[in-house]
């Protein structure tokens, strides 16, 4: 995971993208599909709605434009709230607000949880995973994809789906397709602990500009509060460091919406990269230069929301190209979701402990993560091989102390017990 592990975690309603674009089409469809995924895969979602807040009179005209655009895109139940209605709903908002566009179909999701749920279900249904491998070459014979060379061998294949995020241009180039130009745009965030999670009820956007939706304030599905992102074009795909200037920018932006936003509860800062296509729309379709190469690139916001719809489109592209797609009779759409130890009630915790005494050892105090959960994370269908991977699966080290008292030795011991050499690599 690259972009997928550091973004806002918002399921956008779909009013922002220009009508007729892939962003608009897949955003609105993806938003609907997440309701099905929530039921099938047990992905943790909260349909809390979003507000685009007008702070100046000129903004009100933009809200009307967004309302019209959203209706044209097929977004249901949009409405413009007056100042009074808005402050009733969000009492911490700046009292100078003039109104807002209310989108009740917007939501929030853990991007880790969504990605892993999809991946685990895919693996359960027979998809094989190549872990920690580098693609070195895409083989092309007579203008058609013939295989992929990785640092561990060759896979013969007639089809390659290029969903490589910030590396999509490089992957295309490996096949001889130089048409994919990706700009890397960094977004920085601040994350607050759960004591501030109720600061807002919905996701709050300022009125957008041409380059960004602006500094967003929103709760997370785990009860934290986040602010961000800014937008800074960078050259290096590893440039995910945060900056003092960036922090100042997002704090200033957030306080335009919530003036009394204190910083005492900030627990971490992070940055993620978005892959921005030259024409500001998703690149979804077959390569014009190499048959069998299908691009799913330029996936910036609202890519998280759009992902399930993009997947549907890619399957249709493959079908149109002649790939035989007969239904898998053993496809199981449902994933058995697991309650974390923290989420379990007292009785369930007792039962868990009896089944596995390692639940008696707490590895992460802030998030109440047990050693048994660490072991399980290393055993699940998409197993954790790094400390970061353990974190996103269990939330160990993601609480208020951010791993300050994480029992790293126990994580290490657990990984050795199941035969994995877990690498203690953390994100910068």
């Amino acid at each position, binding site marked *: 995971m690259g972009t997928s592990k550091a973004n806002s975690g918002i399921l956008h309603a779909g009013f922002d993208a220009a009508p007729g674009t892939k962003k608009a089409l897949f955003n609105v469809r993806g938003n609907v599909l997440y309701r099905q995924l929530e039921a099938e895969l047990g992905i943790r979602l909260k349909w809390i709605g979003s507000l685009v807040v007008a702070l100046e009179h000129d903004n009100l005209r933009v809200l009307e434009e967004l309302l019209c655009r959203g209706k044209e895109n097929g977004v249901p139940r949009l409405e413009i709230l007056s100042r009074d209605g808005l402050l009733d709903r969000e009492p911490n908002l700046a009292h100078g607000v003039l109104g807002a566009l209310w989108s009740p179909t917007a939501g929030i999701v853990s991007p880790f949880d969504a990605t892993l749920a*999809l991946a685990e279900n895919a693996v359960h249904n*027979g*998809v094989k995973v190549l872990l*920690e491998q580098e693609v070195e070459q895409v083989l092309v014979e007579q203008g058609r994809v013939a295989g992929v060379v990785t640092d561990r061998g060759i896979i013969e294949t007639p089809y390659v789906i290029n969903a490589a995020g910030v590396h999509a241009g490089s992957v295309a180039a490996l096949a001889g397709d130089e048409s994919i130009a990706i700009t890397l745009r960094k977004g920085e965030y601040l994350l607050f602990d759960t004591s501030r999670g109720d600061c807002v009820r919905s996701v709050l956007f300022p009125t957008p500009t041409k380059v960004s939706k602006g500094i967003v304030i929103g709760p997370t599905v785990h009860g934290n509060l986040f602010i961000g992102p800014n937008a800074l074009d960078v050259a290096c795909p590893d440039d995910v460091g945060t900056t003092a200037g960036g922090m100042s920018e997002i704090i200033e932006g957030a306080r335009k919406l919530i003036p009394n936003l204190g910083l005492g509860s900030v627990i971490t800062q992070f940055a993620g990269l978005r892959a921005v296509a030259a024409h500001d729309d998703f690149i979804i379709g077959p390569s014009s230069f190499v048959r069998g190469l299908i691009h799913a690139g330029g996936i910036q916001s609202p890519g998280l929301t759009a992902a399930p719809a*993009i997947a549907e489109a890619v399957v249709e592209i493959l079908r149109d190209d002649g790939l035989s797609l007969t239904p898998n009779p*053993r496809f199981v759409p449902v994933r058995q979701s697991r309650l974390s130890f923290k989420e379990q009630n007292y009785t369930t915790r007792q039962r868990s402990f009896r089944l596995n005494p390692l639940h008696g050892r707490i590895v992460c105090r802030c998030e109440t993560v047990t050693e048994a959960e660490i072991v399980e994370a290393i055993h699940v269908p998409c197993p954790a091989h790094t400390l970061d*991977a353990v974190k996103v699966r269990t939330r160990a080290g993601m609480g208020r102390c951010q791993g300050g008292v994480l029992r790293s030795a126990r994580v290490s011991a657990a990984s050795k017990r199941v035969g994995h050499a877990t690498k203690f690599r953390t994100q910068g």
Partner: protein
Amino acid sequence: MRDGPLNVEEIDLTNEARADVVIIGGGVVGAAIARELSRYNLSMSYWKNILT
């Protein structure tokens, strides 16, 4: 149809392997495509670097 258990494995590529579709990218888009393709009777699908 696939042979063997439906669980993850690190495929040994010391010999050549074959797949109907290879997905490069293990983010949410790659995972969603993999899951959607698993509805169909394909011999194999892969993707890389699903883990951080």
